[in-house]
């Protein structure tokens, strides 16, 4: 299991940041390698994410549920998915909250969550996958700041990470 705890300082007003972060299309555009798929009647939607573990690309398909509490500016995201070869599954649960930042017109986004990877790629979890996720989180933070500032983001592309071997030795 990999834990995420992140506080992202965004130089935009909380209301605006909430607007961005509560919109799945906007959030997805902040995650490189992610694409939004069909929306379902129960409010969930499909998503795909291409992750680069080492030099290998792995494409995950997931069912994503987003629950929003606009009053508290708090959201819960959960995703369950697997890769195309059905060799690896993942479950991700995260909560995020937008709070006022250290000054007018500034916000902080507090994210905490857990990701569990099982199956063939799980050997990575020892540290490689953790590093990949840390990198993705950092990238997400940067993209979120830019998106809130109204910058148009580049099209999705894959991000980096390890193979699924045991370290030799």
């Amino acid at each position: 299991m990999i834990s995420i705890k992140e506080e992202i300082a965004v130089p935009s007003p909380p209301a605006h940041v909430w607007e961005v972060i509560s919109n799945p299309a906007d959030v997805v555009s902040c995650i490189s390698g992610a694409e939004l798929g069909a929306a379902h009647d129960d409010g969930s939607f499909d998503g795909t994410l291409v992750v680069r573990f080492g030099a290998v690309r792995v494409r995950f398909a997931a069912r994503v549920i987003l629950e929003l509490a606009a009053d508290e500016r708090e959201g819960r995201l959960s995703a369950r998915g697997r890769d195309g070869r059905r060799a690896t599954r993942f479950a991700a649960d995260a909560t995020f909250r937008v709070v006022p930042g250290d000054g007018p017109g500034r916000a902080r986004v507090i994210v905490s969550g857990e990701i569990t990877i099982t199956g063939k790629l799980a050997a990575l979890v020892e540290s490689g996958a953790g590093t990949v996720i840390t990198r993705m989180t950092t990238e997400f933070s940067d993209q979120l700041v830019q998106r809130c500032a109204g910058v148009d983001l580049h099209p999705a592309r894959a991000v980096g990470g390890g193979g699924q071997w045991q370290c030799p030795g």
Partner: protein
Amino acid sequence: MKVYELLAQAFVAEGTSDVFGMMGDANMHWMNALARRGVRLYEVRHEGSGLGMADGWARTAGRPGVVTTTSGPGVAQLATSMIVASRARTPLVAFCGETAWGDQGAVQYLDQRRFAAAIECGFVHVSRADLAEEAVQRAFYLSRTESRPIMLSAPIDVQKQECEDGDQYVPSTDLIPRGRSLPDPAAIEAACDIIRASKRVVIIAGRGARRAEAGEQILRLQGRTGALLATTLQAKNWLCGSTDYHVGIAGLYGDKTAMELLQEADCVIAVGASLNHYTIEHGYLFPDARYIQIDTAPHIVMGNGAVADSYIRADAVTALTELTRALESRSVALEGFHTTEVLHRLTAPLATPAEFHGEPGLLDPREVIHVLDEEIPGEIGLVLGSGHQTDFGTMLFQRSREVLSNYGMFGAIGQAPLLTIGSIVANGNRPAFVVEGDASFLMHLPEFETACRYDIPILIVVMNDEGLGAEYHKAGAAGLDPELAVIPTPELGPVAVALGGGGATVRTADQLRAALAEYVRAPRPTVIDVRITRNIVSIPYRRLLHGEDV
């Protein structure tokens, strides 16, 4: 005649010429009988090491290696090396003495049958004098046909019984049909259809293809299909001098260009390669490919849990010839990967001298590999050792030469020098070198003395980072204390000299070149202790521990 003589005679009839091991009460009569029959005996310093040598012997000779131990404690020493040989699918017979049949109170008693099962080898018991020859035949038959180690366990009282002279022994080879297996035309047809519908073909050549000497046929199929040629780790560098479109190893040890190109494949043709999860990264390396597999095994489940779209069970040479002929007759010819752009990407150097970063008195391990590859002629074979350091050689050795890797065979450190000694003996004492870590080499240091005693021209290049490099780097990534994995070593050059061989401790590239030149001029048992920096992390470790896209 005594049973131990009959047993020895049967071993000779099975082609046994070299036996590694250590004498004790329960195998010494048999060893004496072998010596009288002209078999070369190699007295080692640890039975497990002897097994490692027999393993290397068998992997090179392609027929069963032989190791011997006395009862109980001698057998117990075999554990690690036996499991390695078993995982490597090495044909091997371990002649193990046993305490007197039924005497469970004997000091050296061990339930050898149960022990054999635990260490993953087959077991044949010599329980009666009149069944002794049959037992030898069965042990060799199983080891050859199942390609695995078999323990032949012989109680000392049975060995010492009188028996009839044996003159009718039928070697196990007489029981094994030798014909070639021909490909099923329907499978060839299916393979042609797959290739016809493909644009980017990759051929992966494995140990089986090299053993079958199918190089020429592979190159013809490659030309016809515009394929990239990759190898498994076991066939590293094979045919790399014969085609410009060689991408090296498929899997974690592939360089970035290889990884990127391989992921574009829409068809993979495996020849004598099981396509285990190492080679195809559980299938992730070939997300869009269909598979054609040529192998002699009855059936194979690949490392992605699936079977090939077309499985051609046949001898490699015959199957490749048929497949190419079928493609020719259907006028199927692809440009595939054979473009100037791909060629350009493949000719970029892997690591340039400008990138080498040693420390004062400590070499960059990549530079060490570079110098070794330059200075050691291609006729001198290579064995890749263990630990973190092995990643450098596995990725960076470029010269076409015989390469043996033990990666993935139980992951025990320290086996490589033993495998090298056995391999040299099987090759008629042709020189070979092994690149090994300091901890791995020191684990079986006494066997360097064995190499000296028998004048085995092995060169051991110790990539000495004075520590357990693997743990050092993993500890760093896991937030543990790397210093706990630092272990100082004495200068190993003088140690090697004291044990009766040649030796040098080197701290610069020039010193390394000089030491290598001396070995190459007159190969003899030699240790070169190369002091390397701990600051360079291998590409596989960077991928696995740090998720780097390198």
